[in-house]
């Protein structure tokens, strides 16, 4: 099976900071991939580089057979790759409805937009209820749902989730992971960056462990659960 996304020796550099130092990864259609690692390991930089928000100083990113290295961020929604960013970053002064409308900004196909609205409101009935409320007044869990809902409005083939459970109550975290399994059934391919390693490996098919901007280990979720490298990567040992 050919890869939906393939990344070859990706480097990300912000001035003097070399956040990602040569990463290779493949994502196949229908998979859930977990990106794991300690703070500052380069997980978020990798996701941001995939959608053009961080500069890829070297390497190659191929999505659906197209070389998208160095493309502007505004191109990716239309190509079918979206990111639900770390810290949710919903538009607080826009209503829930306007946030979702912005999620569908790149879509020209009217019936598809209508289906997207229904899908998001079915997944998150609370967003339907609060659609005229300012996003800034939602609870953290609801904002996370809005951030994911907004990313789903463009019907992505590949959804990148950056720390979807960060700062949320345990009960909400469970809901988020349930959501990931529901989305998988709907055929959405996902790359998930998570601090919550055990839950991430429960839903993921495969995972990559990052340390100091490099891949320290990779394999199926079952392999990684038993691996020493995973613990080492979090404890910061080499």
């Amino acid at each position: 099976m050919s890869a939906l996304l393939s990344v070859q020796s990706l480097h990300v550099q912000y001035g003097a900071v070399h956040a990602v130092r040569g990463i290779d990864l493949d994502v196949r259609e229908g998979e859930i991939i977990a990106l794991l690692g300690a703070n500052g390991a380069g997980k978020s930089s990798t996701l941001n580089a995939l959608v053009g928000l961080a500069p890829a100083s070297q390497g190659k990113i191929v999505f659906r057979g197209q070389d998208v290295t160095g493309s502007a961020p505004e191109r990716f929604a239309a190509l079918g790759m979206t990111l639900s960013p770390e810290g949710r970053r919903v538009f607080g002064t826009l209503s829930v409805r306007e946030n979702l409308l912005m999620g569908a900004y790149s879509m020209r196909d009217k019936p598809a937009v209508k289906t997207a609205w229904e899908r998001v409101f079915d997944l998150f009935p609370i967003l339907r209820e609060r659609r005229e409320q300012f996003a800034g007044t939602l609870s953290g869990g609801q904002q996370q749902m809005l951030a994911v809902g907004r990313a789903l409005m463009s019907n992505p083939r590949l959804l990148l989730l950056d720390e979807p459970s960060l700062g949320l109550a345990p009960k909400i975290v469970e809901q988020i992971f349930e959501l990931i399994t529901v989305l998988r059934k709907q055929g959405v391919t996902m790359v998930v960056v998570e601090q919550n390693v055990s839950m991430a490996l429960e839903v993921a098919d495969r995972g990559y462990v990052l340390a100091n901007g490099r891949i320290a280990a990779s394999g199926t979720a079952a392999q990684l659960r038993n691996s020493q490298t995973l613990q080492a990567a979090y404890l910061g040992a080499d």
Partner: protein
Amino acid sequence: MDLFLQQTVNAFALGGTYALLALGLAMVFSTMGLINFAHGELMTIAGYILMACGLAGVPFALSVPLAICAAVIAAVAMERIAFRPVRNASGATMLVTSFAVSMILQVLFQNFISARSQAVLLPQVLSESVRFGGLVIGVNKIAAIATTIVMLIFLDRFMKHHRVGIAMRAAAEDFSVARLMGIRANTVIAGAFALSGFLAGVAAVLWVSQRASVDPLMGFTPVLKAFIAAILGGLGSLRGAVAGGFLLGFIEIYLAAYLPQGMQEFRDPIALCLVVLVLIFRPNGLIPSPALKAEKV
């Protein structure tokens, strides 16, 4: 009482013009972090078009839209030529660029048009006045107030209901995430400049219709005032710009009306002291911008 009402009408007319200018500054600032001091030259360009149309015998009803169009085109051209290359530079770099644009245009006006003030032919009706009970109100004041109201309603609807307007609000709050949604940075920024040019054009028509003349530095003072208004309201906040514009207009007009004769010369410093006083109590302005989340010590 009549004097007070009379001055209130004047304050609305002047404050409305400041509000339109401050809105234009706030729109550009909120999308790209640029304080565009060349905004005043957009007004001057519109003023010269009014002058030229008057000389060529073009009817006023046609010269107004022409002047506004010229300001829009000039604003978009300014962004394309001068500001796009420095888009990702620091705020200071962009500020200096805007000063350069402003000065280049002023020198061009001085050398190719005239360094002196030029008369603008206006329709007779603008200099007439209407009597409401004991009040005598100039038609130009009524036109200014009515135009401001129409413009504010139009902008409010555009920013709330049009997809580009909503995208501009989204981009003002979080530009990177807006780009992720497929909102093109160029569209939002060019849109903000076009709207700011439109507002400057309208403000220029209102400004010129109070004065019937145009000179190379015409835009400088009103835009400086609008800049103060934008800060008073909360830099980058659109509602704040409107509030700040009106408040500054009220302060200036009431000071001019009620300050004792001997203190009239200190009107502007006193007005600025009042502005500073407001800012001491509300350091982020009357209605702070939502994008302003960073806490300052």
